[in-house]
């Protein structure tokens, strides 16, 4: 028996991956599988780690299938029926589906083999859930996409309902009455939903400006059947504060909005509103295959980041000071946060106390050497460094007061105190935001 690995990990056929003959005996395959794993294991390969890992994974797949008698027989059926390329792909699909039926029966089922075989991306659409087994049998005659989605719907009504357009997931067509819950403007600020659901005839309603539109999105996300009063608040208020108000209104809808808006601010698991635009519980509809997610909202416009940052600020500010910040200031702050400089600000201060002390010593030197005005101006930018400002200026004021006269410090204690106040004020502004250096991660 040869003790060299002679397979090709990138091959389609499991036999080629292990470097054995189709007719090879079990012992031979066993040894070949071990040799292959040893040879391609990343520990024994100087080639790129990710490549080696992928190759190892392919070899293990092959080894797992061929060293087990039953799996090997099944695999043989697949490749005899479909050839090595498609056969392997289908085998993996069948295996991932927890092997619902014997391979011959499974292969005999009509499925959109064209899509399955031609492109990689759609090949495993039916993989959506491992629990698909039972359902996929009953809906096996429909196209694979539909099957996947129909599996996920937990009510029989969904599968039984007529499908308006064959390719769309199996939810029912929304009824007129349900859709009234939406106002037109909101509808239009959202992404186009599938043809069957978009109603071109919906009135445009009160078109809102770009920023307000986003705010609306933010505030009403999840609040599908939001009543009009609620929405009015959103439209009239200042963007930042409006969102904030929303979050504090103790209704289901507002809570849902807060959930979504507070993506990063709140760690609590989402409790979405049970009602949806379709007057259906989306959780129920999509539960089986929809990732549990707290969406981050917004359009792809350039204000997007700023808007989001602002919203974060206001949400966090609900318990802090930022909520009281007037809108123009909040907007300016948001711009700062969004700018590349914003990222730098958060990391500007050295972690080490020694480095901080050295920095402070240097700055005192500047204060001594430079004139009062020049010194203060030189240090002014440091006000906006939340990790530096508050402690630096306070210390300098204390130092100046304590050491008054020896040596003559150019900037007086009151000057430092003013800077300290600025820095403190700035810190209060950023408190709770991404710039807050003391916020827990």
């Amino acid at each position, binding site marked *: 028996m040869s003790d060299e690995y002679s397979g090709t990990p990138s091959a389609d056929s499991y036999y080629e991956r292990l470097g054995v003959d189709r007719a090879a005996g079990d012992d031979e395959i066993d040894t070949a599988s*071990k040799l292959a794993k040893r040879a391609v294991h990343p*520990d024994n390969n100087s080639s790129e*780690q990710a490549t080696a890992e992928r190759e190892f994974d392919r070899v293990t797949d092959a080894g797992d299938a061929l060293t087990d008698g039953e799996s090997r027989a099944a695999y043989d059926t697949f490749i005899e029926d479909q050839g090595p390329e498609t056969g392997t792909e289908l085998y993996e699909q069948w295996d991932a589906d927890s092997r619902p039926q014997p391979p011959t029966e499974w292969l005999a089922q009509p499925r959109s083999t064209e899509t399955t075989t031609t492109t990689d991306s759609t090949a495993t*659409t039916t*993989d959506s859930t491992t629990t698909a087994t039972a359902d996929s049998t009953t809906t096996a005659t429909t196209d694979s996409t539909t099957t996947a989605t129909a599996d996920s719907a937990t009510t029989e009504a969904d599968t039984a309902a007529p499908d308006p357009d064959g390719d769309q997931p199996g939810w029912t067509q929304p009824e007129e009455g349900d859709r009234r819950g939406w106002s037109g403007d909101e509808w239009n600020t959202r992404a186009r939903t599938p043809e069957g659901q978009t109603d071109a005839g919906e009135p445009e309603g009160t078109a809102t400006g770009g920023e307000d539109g986003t705010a609306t999105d933010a505030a009403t996300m999840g609040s599908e059947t939001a009543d009009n009063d609620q929405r009015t608040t959103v439209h009239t208020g200042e963007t930042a504060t409006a969102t904030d108000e929303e979050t504090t209104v103790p209704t289901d809808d507002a809570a849902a909005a807060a959930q979504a808006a507070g*993506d990063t601010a709140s760690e609590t698991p989402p409790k979405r509103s049970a009602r949806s635009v379709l007057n259906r519980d989306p959780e129920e509809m999509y539960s089986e295959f929809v*990732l549990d997610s707290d969406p981050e909202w917004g359009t792809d416009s350039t204000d997007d980041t700023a808007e989001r940052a602002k919203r974060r600020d206001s949400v966090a500010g609900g318990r802090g000071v930022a909520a009281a910040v007037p809108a123009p200031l909040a907007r300016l702050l948001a711009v700062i946060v969004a700018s590349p400089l914003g990222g730098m600000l958060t990391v500007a201060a050295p972690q080490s106390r020694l480095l901080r002390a050295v920095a402070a010593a240097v700055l005192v030197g500047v204060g001594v050497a430079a004139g009062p005005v020049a010194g203060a101006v030189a240090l002014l930018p440091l006000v906006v460094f939340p990790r530096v400002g508050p402690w630096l200026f306070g210390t300098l004021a204390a130092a100046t007061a304590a050491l008054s006269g020896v040596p003559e410090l150019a900037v007086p204690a009151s000057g430092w105190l003013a800077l300290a106040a600025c820095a403190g004020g700035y810190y209060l502004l950023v408190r709770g935001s991404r710039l807050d250096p003391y916020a827990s991660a």
Partner: protein
Amino acid sequence: MGEGYTVGIDLGTTRSAVAYVAGGDPEVISTGNSGESVIPSVVQFGEDAVNVGQTAANMAIQHPDRTVTEVKREMGGEEPLSVAGEEYLPEQISSLILEHIVDEAEASIGRDVEGAVITVPAYFDDPKRTATESAGEIAGLDVKRLLPEPSAACLAYGLHEQKLGNAEAELAFVYDLGGGTFDATLVEIDYEINSVETLHTAGDNALGGSNWTQRVVDWMVDSIGTDTGVDITNDPEQLARVREEAKSAKHRLSDLQSTEVSVPFVVPEESYTFSDELTRERFEELTADLADATTDPLDDLFERADYAPADVDKVLLAGGSVRMPHIQSLVSDYFDQEASMEINPEEAVALGAAIQAEIIDESGADAAAMLPGETDDIVLIDVVPKSLGVRLSDGSIDHIIEQDEQIPTSTRKEGYGTVEPEQTSVQIHVYQGEGDTAEANTKIGRAVLRNIPPRPPGEPSLAVEFRITTDGQLEVTGEDLETGKQVETTVESALRHSPDEIDELDEQLPALDES
């Protein structure tokens, strides 16, 4: 490769050991003045410095409130432990043990230690492994790999066997009962091609020798209570003395049929001295359910495996607690064959870790020298201990990587969708475990796919790929099937520390006593 050495560290619940490979032979480093090969995993926070190891264990009885034992059981927890008026994370305390071990190793080898292979129970889940890796980083080590303890024992055993010239393939079972954890692992060893493949693993992260000790403690506390009416569980100092005696009685009973258990003046106000006879039979009665509990993971494992207990060629015992005779007979009965004690259960894990360190080492020269034949490659393959999956919006878990997959591995799953229209990011909550609902499993963290184009809600147009690298790290990639856009993301959790945080956690720690 740097100048420094890479050692193998067995970071145990109650005791640790360190080994390295010198000139083709793995060797456990003896430490301290007494030349012991095991180091008690005890950390004692003194007035101005921290003691670890035997010194700390000796002082533990006087200062129970300043002493941390069995920190391994707390690993993976996010809550800090409060000791000596300060709060420390479990990984910080573990790092002190590692630092001490490395100091000892450096003193013994006479060279710098830079990296380490640290062993973990095979059944440790991702948060516990992450915490262990952080502990190594806080201690300033380059953690090359986290190696499952049973695999390490197999490597040590395999090498030992091979040197004896036993060139056959074997199906080995490792029964590893340590101080605080229990692992059961089924391994296929092929000596001809130097391959050690883990097939299945099961275990209990909260079952170990200290549970046996606790039973003896309970027995002693009960009879002290009956005799004097005093409940000493409220007196940490006396309780520490009782525990010490219980532990030593447990060890004595491994060799003796009966032993005298005594704690002088355990209730000082009544001048009461506890003294009683403990027979092995009585001890086994007290702990019968614990021993039985170790067979549950075994049953579970063989239910999953293609093999039956009778197919096992060799049963290896590892971990200090297998010295208890009733454990040995329980294992022998289960497999209907004598369980092997050929390898020193206390040292095998550290030795295996040292061998693995050599295998990983790029030069690999010593790895080849370890083997008798001309073959130069040797491979150890581990498995994923528990399935990894994502939480779906109905709270259920969808497993992506299944239990017992050999690593490295990757699995891609399609058919995920979003909940809301205009959704441009998706949070993937990653869980590990076999429970049906997400909450019944261990939460590992979350990964966020950002900047995905909005899509109609519920459209199954997202794919998620989980990848476990050779180092056991989980990587998550999301893909938008419509545009083919891929989003790489990392799993965020409170246990994954950035380099800055590692430095900060290190700075918070008091210095080790260097004397």
